[in-house]
């Protein structure tokens, strides 16, 4: 069955737009190119089946599921603290950020609020995981476009922020630190001063990346004007995070829909957007975001209130009956948990709305008419984590 052809429907407009990119007059017999599931340019095991006409992509279909671990089923047989340990591994680069929306959803259903100090530390660690995540993106994207040096720089400077996360939580990138009603532990001694130093290093790293990678002429040639996504299309595909902001949509859940429990309103920061919507814009927005994140962390470090890090919650956590959806602005975009509870030790149903799933669903649209080398730019700049797509 084909889609209903209603001229005003977004799908038809989108199809028309993609058709103009492909020169249909010269369509030859074509060939099918299979990338993956093991392919160096697709970090993780994404497989892309691209139909080519010469070097132009006629259609590209991502095939997911190579990393599908069945999260939504597994959480139905695990208690809330056990789930907290498990969901770290959805978006494995920004692990702490995965825990927060789930914990906030459970807190919302229980009517618990974390003490201010815990909220501050949560926000700081949230932003640190964003830095850990996006700094690797910058290096990795450079790597994919042939600039291997960027990768080494990113891996080097990422360690600074990983060290801080490890010092506070005990895990390099699966902290399992968040708890319903607060945090597992308080910060260690001297952590705040060390974090300031680490953030300064990260800010220097951002400058370095701007000179090394984003300002590079070859990089710009390979990304500017490639894979343009208009705002309208981005919204209807549910793109979120930097991908949406790079299309000129001024929307950030940290500012516009921040759930209670995170204290972004306590820091002075800016949401960056870019009007172009191409691969370059997405990289640029992410670079600025890393910078802003470091600034948020630095400001919040100075204003952490004293007090306990854990509210009074029962030892055995039973979440009252109800439904709640909480989404936060994770490094990759909007990540939300729709938690249905029946008042049991385990949730009845959890729908995990992960950012990469929506972000990558636009690939068939945006890759149509692109050239094969540009496919790498597009995939790289959309920035997905396989675990976040497949869950």
């Amino acid at each position, binding site marked *: 069955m084909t889609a209903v052809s209603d001229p005003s429907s977004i799908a038809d407009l989108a199809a028309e737009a993609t058709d103009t990119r492909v020169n249909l007059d010269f369509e030859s017999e074509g060939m099918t190119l299979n990338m993956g599931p093991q392919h160096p340019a697709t970090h993780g095991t994404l497989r892309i089946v691209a139909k080519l006409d010469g070097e132009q992509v006629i259609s590209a279909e991502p095939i997911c*599921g190579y990393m599908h671990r069945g999260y939504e089923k597994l959480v139905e047989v695990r208690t809330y603290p056990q789930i907290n340990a498990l969901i770290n591994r959805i978006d494995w680069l920004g692990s702490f950020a995965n825990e927060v929306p789930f914990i906030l959803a459970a807190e*919302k259903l229980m009517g618990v*609020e974390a003490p*201010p100090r815990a909220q501050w530390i949560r926000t700081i660690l949230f932003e640190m995981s964003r830095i850990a995540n996006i700094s690797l993106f910058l290096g990795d994207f450079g790597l994919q476009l042939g600039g291997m040096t960027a990768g080494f720089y990113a891996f080097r400077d990422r360690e600074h922020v990983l060290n801080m996360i490890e010092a506070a939580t005990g895990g390099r990138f699966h902290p399992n630190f968040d708890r319903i009603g607060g945090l597992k532990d308080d910060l260690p001694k001297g952590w705040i001063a060390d974090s300031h130093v680490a953030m300064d290093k990260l800010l220097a790293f951002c400058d370095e990346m701007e000179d090394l990678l984003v300002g590079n002429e070859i990089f710009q040639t390979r990304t500017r004007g490639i894979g343009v996504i208009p705002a309208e299309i981005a919204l209807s595909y549910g793109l979120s995070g930097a991908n949406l902001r790079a299309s000129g949509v001024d929307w950030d859940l940290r500012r516009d829909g921040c759930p209670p429990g995170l204290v972004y309103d306590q820091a002075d920061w800016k949401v960056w957007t870019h009007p172009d919507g191409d691969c370059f814009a997405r990289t640029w927005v992410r670079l600025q975001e890393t910078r802003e994140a470091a600034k948020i962390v630095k400001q919040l470090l100075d204003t952490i209130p004293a007090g306990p890090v854990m509210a009074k919650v029962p030892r055995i956590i039973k979440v009252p009956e109800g439904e709640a959806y909480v989404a936060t602005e994770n490094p990759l975009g909007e990540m939300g948990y729709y938690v249905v509870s029946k008042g049991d030790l385990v949730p009845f*149903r959890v729908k995990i709305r992960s950012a990469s799933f929506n972000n990558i*669903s636009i690939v068939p649209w945006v890759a149509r008419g692109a050239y094969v080398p540009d496919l790498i730019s597009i995939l790289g700049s959309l920035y997905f984590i396989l675990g976040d797509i497949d869950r």
Partner: protein
Amino acid sequence: MIRLSSADTTEATESTEAVATDEAREAVLAELTGRLGDSVLGSHIRPGDDLWVRVDRAAWRRAAEATRAMGFTFFDYVSAIDWLPSPFGRDMDAQEDLVVSGAAPKEPAPIVQGYAGGETRFQVIAHVYNIATATGIHLKADVPDDDLSLPSWSSVYAGANWHERETREMFGITFDGHPNLINMYLPTDFQGFPLRKDFPLLARRVRPWPGIVDVEPMPGGADDAEGDDQ
């Protein structure tokens, strides 16, 4: 108010905020009811937080068009909920233990749907967002057991395409008018629909839940690992 805040000053500001946004959600609900008429079967508002609307199955696509026309252009997700209480108990093996020990199986608990009500075991749920007003709507629709299908949203919200594929795969609910309803995650020869409540996790049945073992004996003194090196 859902938030039992322990903080002193935030409570007052929060409650005023809640009343304000509550009105906004009432208005959204009123407008949606105006557009869909009798097709709105139920609704639930949590002041200052969220809005749930249950629409008639036949009006599922019209509901998408209506919300889109109302400015809810940001597509979040489509999924489903199986309201059947799990026949296997929490650890997936409880029921089997009962059968083995000869006890009578428990009476299955009744199906109780969540916010905005419902009549069927399966409900499809979708979330769309209006980024201008920062409000979202959860739309629900009942899907009867004898005809597990709904009109597809993929020509209204392009992003629904993949979500509907996922829902079809996980729950067995088909979407009429979907261009390419193939498996998203699982191999094509996979049997069953994993997110249905009556789909057992077999690994839990063949071996007991490891959390039962509290303290394991210490590994033996003579280390095997060293022997392997030779």
